[in-house]
């Protein structure tokens, strides 16, 4: 049974349970529903929830865990593969062969019995699979065929077991909740408690996501550090991954590029964002505000890929032709300056809307006091409002910095790929995020340090931005409380 169908069946069982629960409650009350503790609808609802939810959760968990369990079992059959990389390749072959066999059976070209009788010697398996649109590299080895057969057997077994288990669980829930229906049964409280549990579960997803992020980064980073010395990663000053091993994977050139580009971006975004926020909140007329504020917010709604393309086709060539080349500083259109400037544009709305909030939070009484002493508007801004808002603005800048450090598409398309530590802003440099993308989308095998380094870089990025965020949120919150 396909998963979609299974879900529909379970929902139908639950819907039937809803009707049955209502009818049963009515019968229990002997026609006078006022005798019931809860309205009949609540009885039906309780049955529905107890029938559908556990079964659907079971399906979700089963789908998530099943491939890992099956892979574990199949791996045992591929005993001859010594290295992890070869094993992964063989597993990929197993998946493809199994998918091809499935398709052949589905098309009616091959019977289940014929699959069991297939051998590597007898027929040209590769060509047969080719007719099903499955390409396998090289000859199919006996071991792979056996594993593929086992894989198919286990997947089919698992699918059948899941169907049976899910329906059985649904029916068990149905029976259990129907049996509970009596006149005194507090169906409303039970079903509301159940819904509350679902609410709690939903809000726990955020915690589980964080846990998932930390766990996946940590596991693979530890894996990486077992293949590559941590000392070199943290202290080596060169980044030079090699296909054949012997790479030097020092984080410093990437960190330098990241910080340099973020610095340029903030150098552009902070004054522009802050001053426009000040102007909009202290000087601008209502009409101007109504026009300019949404326009700045448009900048915030534009996806980063658009900024990336802007850097690539417009800003990069412009800076190269009019600044870098005449000044003899470089010939590359992707540079720290390109990425930094475009990222700065992206950050303007971020800085300005945060500062706007913070400036508006400064109490009017402070302004009035300053004006009462005869200060001009700009003196009030510079000597009263900004100092009062300073902690909040620092928090906003830190949040913007964390945004800049984690930004990916603009630097992928605008900063270049050369890991370099130089002070020339018109030279191409690279960042942590660029290297995460390039190491994980490259062709190197997964278990090599060249790929796994992406997880260590991800860990560094995560820790770095997390610290900035925590400090910034703390500062902003402390500041807000000050005037409330």
């Amino acid at each position: 049974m396909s998963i979609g169908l299974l879900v529909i069946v379970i929902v139908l069982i639950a819907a039937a349970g809803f009707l049955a629960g209502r009818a049963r409650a009515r019968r229990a009350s002997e026609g006078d529903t006022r005798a019931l503790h809860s309205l009949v609808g609540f009885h039906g609802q309780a049955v529905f929830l107890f029938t559908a939810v556990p079964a659907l959760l079971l399906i979700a968990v089963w789908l998530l865990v099943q491939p890992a369990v099956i892979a574990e079992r199949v791996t045992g059959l591929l005993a001859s593969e010594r290295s992890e990389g070869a094993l992964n390749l063989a597993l990929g072959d197993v998946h493809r062969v199994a998918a091809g066999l499935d398709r052949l059976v589905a098309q009616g070209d091959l019977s289940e019995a014929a699959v069991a009788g297939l051998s590597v010697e007898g027929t040209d398996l590769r060509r047969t699979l080719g007719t099903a649109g499955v390409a396998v590299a090289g000859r199919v080895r006996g071991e792979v065929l056996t594993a593929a057969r086992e894989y198919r057997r286990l997947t089919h077994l698992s699918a059948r077991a899941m169907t049976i288990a899910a329906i059985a669980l649904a029916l068990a829930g149905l029976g259990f909740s129907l049996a509970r229906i009596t006149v005194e049964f507090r169906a409303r409280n039970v079903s509301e408690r159940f819904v509350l549990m679902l609410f709690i579960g939903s809000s726990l997803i955020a915690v589980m996501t964080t846990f998932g992020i930390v766990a996946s980064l940590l596991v693979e980073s530890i894996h990486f550090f077992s293949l590559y010395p941590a000392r070199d990663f943290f202290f080596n000053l060169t980044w030079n991954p090699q296909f054949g091993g012997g790479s030097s994977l020092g984080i410093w050139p990437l960190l330098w590029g990241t910080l340099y580009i973020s610095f340029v971006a903030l150098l552009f975004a902070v004054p522009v964002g802050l001053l426009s926020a000040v102007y909009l909140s202290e000087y601008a007329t209502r009409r101007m505000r109504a026009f300019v504020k949404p326009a700045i917010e448009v900048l915030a709604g534009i996806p980063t890929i658009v900024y990336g393309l802007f850097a690539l086709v417009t800003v990069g060539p412009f800076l190269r032709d009019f600044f870098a080349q005449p000044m003899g500083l470089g010939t590359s259109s992707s540079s720290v300056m390109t990425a930094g400037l475009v990222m700065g544009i992206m950050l303007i709305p971020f800085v300005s809307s945060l500062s706007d909030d913070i400036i508006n939070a400064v109490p009017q009484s402070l302004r009035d006091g300053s004006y009462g002493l005869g200060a001009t508007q700009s003196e009030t801004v510079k000597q009263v409002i900004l100092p009062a808002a300073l902690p909040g603005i620092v928090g906003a800048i830190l949040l913007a910095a964390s945004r800049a450090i984690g930004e990916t598409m603009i630097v992928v398309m605008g900063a270049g790929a050369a890991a370099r530590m130089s002070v020339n802003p018109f030279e191409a440099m690279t960042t942590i995020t660029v290297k995460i993308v390039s190491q994980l989308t490259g062709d190197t095998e997964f278990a090599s340090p060249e790929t796994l380094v992406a997880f260590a870089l991800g860990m560094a990025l995560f820790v770095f931005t997390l610290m900035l965020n925590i400090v910034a949120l703390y500062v902003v919150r402390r500041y807000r409380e000050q005037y409330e």
Partner: protein
Amino acid sequence: MTDAAFPPARPRGGSLLEPDARTLRRNAAEARFRLYGVTAIAIAMIALMILLISILSHGTSAFRQTFLHLPIALDEAVLDPSGTRDPAALRKVTTIGYGRLIDRALGEAIAASGITVEGLGKSDISRMVSRQAAATVRSAVLADPALIGTTQEFRILASSRIDGYMKGRVTQDSAARDSNVSPAQLHLADALRAQGLLGTSFNWRFITDPDASELRPEAAGLGIAILGSAYMMIVVLALSLPIGVAASIYLEEFAPRNRFTDLIEVNISNLAAVPSIVFGILGLAIFINFAGLPQSAPVVGGLVLTLMTLPRIIIPARAAIKAVPPSIRDAALGVGASKMQTVFHHVLPLATPGILTGLIIGLGQALGETAPLLLIGMVAFVRDYPEGLPGGLFDPASALPVQIYNWTQRADPAFAERASGAIIVLLIFLLAMNAAAIVVRRRFERRW
């Protein structure tokens, strides 16, 4: 108290109407400060203008495409030597055979209209036509074998350089330096256009066709990318709406103030600020490597984007729920509703506009997100449309922003034009979503 230094008093005899030097200085500082503010706003506005103009000016031409209008003789001797019209036999004729027919038809058309161009070689003529054209004619013939032996009018794609020449991207100068196109071809294109055989028209296939290989940018389209993005948005919507609303209700209405609730709240606000690429790493490690879901499938993209969007939906949803005045809850509780009934019957309907606005904006962000999708393998080149729902969720597909990234990484400048065109499509979708959010807010927002 006594040591406060007084500024020097206004000199006697000075007039109030005539500002002194210090007032002038302070007023100048005031004017300067205003100027800084105006400059900052002007910089932001100019940046926005340049950004939009640059994308629009690069991209609008992607929606138009140059076509050749040719009568092609579908020669039976080439297409069906056996004369049986047997589909299996017809399939044996590859695009090379059809390519020859097109070349012949183009040669005849040139001869018939009396065009002579100096230095035009035979291969120059065949390279006027896109490599995709033969496939177009072939599928037309396979769909209707009765066409064989007749002469049919076809609208076939011109090659990308000719297309570029029509749009001004390729010039005689650049053609002289380009090995893919010769100046003679451009003269021929001019002559063909004068004869009405070559023309540029609106190109629906840019929006509906799948991506095409490096060598035929003129045939590349966004069909699969749009479909893949739509599938992902369906997954994000189906998961993040119920989960996000449930979490917000719990945190606003039910959660006791304790460590556990604090933990959840801190987590949500931190997740909202985690770089999106980290979610891509999470998706790669958990959904693909651990759970074994297929690479480049919309379901994985949808799951990753859901996790990323959830905190961005929960935060406005909580604000919307919080904005419902307590008197409503008190009234409902007062007439005997349970806490859950109060929430579902009264609070939630009143908070719906705010929740929907946040949801639409969150979906818009998810639609434009690229980095996490790169890591879960959505960069792959996909030629086949995914199936319908729900099975299609597990088929390989592309996504709009990833398709744009993909095109920018290709060498041919024709792909840069298409990337900008794709961005226009993406921006139109985002604009529509944001407009919907504004309408919802205007229409249903209630001030208390």
